[in-house]
Structure formats: structure tokens, C-alpha cells
């Protein structure tokens, strides 16, 4: 059988605080000593897990309201509550900042897109210009007519014998 308390003490010494806290929680389940909850709160606090630490302290106060460590636990709870609120507020600010940044980037992107669209409208590509299609269409028609004329002329030029050149 695993001695969770001894293991927790070992892990705590090794500064593996969250693992020590887990062992103390397991120890409480097998042996409901409220001090294990207080120590789990201590270990989570050292691991910088304030939310879990506060919960352990609160469970300890609830389980042993008359214990001499209750004032200290309440002090930790109050401190951790402020810390958690502060972190949440900070996270919210960060989140807002991130959102703002996202909005800003979106605005910049939209502005750039609008600017590009404006530039495209002002100076459309050559294939969107009416004169391009007029010239291209005219050229294609002219080439077609020329080909037809060439074929007709070459058919007219076709002779049985060679071309006789008389010089003046």
C-alpha cells in the first residue's frame, strides 16, 4: 500500500509541488485528516496553481473550522482570491487587447483591401479596359479578314504554269 503522505513529503522536498498536492489529496481520501487539505493547499500555492490552492484551503476551513490554522488558511484564501481576480482581470485585459488588436488588424486589412480595390478601379488591368477589347477585337477581325483575303488572293494567284516576268 502506497504511503501517500510520505510520497507527498518526498515530492514536496523535491519541489514537485503539484504532484505532492495530488498525493495529499489521495491521502485525504483514504484518511480524512483536514491537515492533508491544508498541506495540499500549501503545495498548490507553491506550484503557483492559485485556483486549486484556494479550493484546498476552502475545503480545509469547511472541514475543520476550529483548527488553529484556519486564520492562516483564510488569509491565503483572501490573498489567492485577489490574485485570481487580478489574473482574471489581467487575462480579460489581455483578451480585450488581443480582441482589439484583432479588430485593428481586421480594420487595417479591410482598409488595405479597400485601397487595393480603389486602385484596381482607378487603374484596372489591361484586359478590363474597353479599348483593349476594341483593339483586340479589331485585330482579330482584321486578321480574319486578311486570312480570308489571303486565301482568296492565293486562289486567284494559282496558275498551272510558272510566273513569267517580263521586264521593261
Amino acid at each position, binding site marked *: 500500500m502506497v504511503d501517500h503522505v510520505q510520497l507527498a513529503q518526498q515530492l514536496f522536498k523535491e519541489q514537485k509541488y503539484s504532484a505532492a498536492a495530488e498525493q495529499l489529496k489521495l491521502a485525504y481520501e483514504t484518511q480524512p485528516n483536514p491537515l492533508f487539505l491544508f498541506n495540499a493547499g500549501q503545495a498548490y500555492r507553491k506550484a503557483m496553481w492559485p485556483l486549486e490552492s484556494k479550493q484546498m484551503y476552502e475545503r480545509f476551513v469547511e472541514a475543520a473550522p476550529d483548527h488553529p490554522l484556519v486564520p492562516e488558511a483564510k488569509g491565503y484564501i483572501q490573498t489567492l482570491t485577489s490574485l485570481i481576480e487580478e489574473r482574471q482581470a489581467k487575462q480579460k485585459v489581455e483578451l480585450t487587447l488581443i480582441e482589439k488588436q484583432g479588430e485593428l488588424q481586421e480594420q487595417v486589412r479591410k482598409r488595405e483591401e479597400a485601397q487595393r480595390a480603389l486602385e484596381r478601379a482607378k487603374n484596372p488591368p489591361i484586359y478590363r479596359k474597353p479599348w483593349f477589347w476594341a483593339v483586340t477585337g479589331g485585330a482579330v477581325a482584321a486578321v480574319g479578314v486578311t486570312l480570308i483575303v489571303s486565301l482568296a488572293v492565293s486562289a486567284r494567284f494559282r496558275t*498551272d504554269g510558272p510566273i513569267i516576268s517580263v521586264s521593261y
Partner: protein
Amino acid sequence: MSLFRTRSVSAALLGLLMSGAVGCGPDFKLILTNIPSDADTLYFLTRTDILNSSGQVVQSKVSKPKSESIRSLSASQRELYSYGLTLDGAPVAASDQNRQSIVSVAATQNSTVLRIGESAPVVMTTQFLDLQISFDSLASPPRPMLGTKNLNKDMFMTEARRFLTLDGQLNGILRLEIIGWNFPTDVQAKLSIPNYPAAGQSIELTNCKTTYDSPSTLTVEWPTPKPAVVNTGMPMQMPMPTPLPSYVIDLINNPTQTALGISLSNTDGSRADDWTQGGQRSM
């Protein structure tokens, strides 16, 4: 800038294509029908005139003769055969002028002229024209033997038709229409009646007027002797008609028995041809 460049390139391309399509090729499609089956060589000669808006000839130029061997043509090809004909160096008509061409053709076998003649004048209103010549309609010349003559460079008479006409003063004119080949523009004719039996000697017909019509046609006019003026005792002196000399009558009425000597030459004497037509010798 790019618009200008694109349009310029398009215009240049179009111009190139159009010039390639229309600007090249022969001037005539010469369609020949019924080429004599025994002919071995064709000779071509062209005259091109530039006409002004009133139809008057302002410039005229004659090409050098050109020959084409037709030995290899089959009987069916001789029924209908076409050549391209390019007038190289022919005069060019201005915008208000017309260009007119006449194509003379001769079909020969060795040194014998089988058919000879010329097309009607063709006004070249377009770049390329069909010109049909039927050898059936061309003359089989009374003087066919070329002898030592070369149609590529020499002048040669093949036929001379005699006429008697009157000028404006009702004087008799002996007119000779000569058909032949490669007549120079400065050609002059001399006429004579060799060994005229009634006179017992040759008679020279002096003061002939030669008119160059084309490289294959000439007109020679000789004024017959004028009637003598006699005093009739009337207030006015009237010319009395006198009979034409008998040799003139014989030239017209008895052409086969009355020989006519025709001598052609140009100014510098580089081209000449002599022919005694009719009489006992018809060479």
C-alpha cells in the same frame, strides 16, 4: 503610352498581313486556250500605257520579249493553261491615271510562227486581272518562217494588209497595216515594187509615213501621186481627176501577183527586217 504602343503594334501587324496578302503576286493570270498542239515555244511581249483622266496616253513602255518552252505540255493542258505574268518595271499610274496593258503572244515550232497576235487593251483597275487569249482567234501568219530571226530580240514582220484609202483632200493613200513582232518605236518603213513588169524595173514608193501602233502593229501610208492641175478655161482652176498609176491598182487588186517590198529598220539600224510580200516570191 502603353495604349499607343499596343495600337501601333496592332496597326503594324495588320499592315504587314495586308501587304503580304495583297501586295505580292503577278499582275495577270494569263489564261491560254487551244495552244497549237505542235507549238514548242511561246513568246510574250507587253506594252503598258499610262492614260490620263481624259484617256490620253501620257506614257508608253514596251517590255523585252520573253520566251517560255511548252514542249512538256500535254494535249489536255494545251486546251486550257494558265501562267502568272508579272510586269517588272512597267510604268506606274498616279492616282488620277489608269494603267492599260496589251499582251502580244506568239506560238512557234522551231523557226516557224504558228500563231501570232495580241490581246485587247486591258485597263488595270485592280491589282490582279485574268486575261484570256484564245489561239484560235489569232492569225496564222502568211509569213511564218523566221529564218535566222530570234523573237527574243529581233524585229519580224508576219503579215501586211494592203488598203487604198483617201485623205482629206480626196487624194489616194496606199495604206499598209503590218503585223509582226518586237517593232521598235522609232521604226521606219521603206516600200518598193520590185521588178514591176509593166515598167520593167523596180519602183520606189518614196515619202512613206510610218506610224508605230504597238510592238506588233504598224501602219505605213504612202500618198499616191497627186492629180495634175489643168487649165480648163473656166474662171476657177479645178483639179481634174487622173487615173491612179497602174502599179497602185495592181498592188490592191492583184496582191498575190504584185510584189511589195517592205523594209523596216530603226534609227540606229540595230534592228531591221526585209520582206517581199506577194508576187512570185512570198518569203
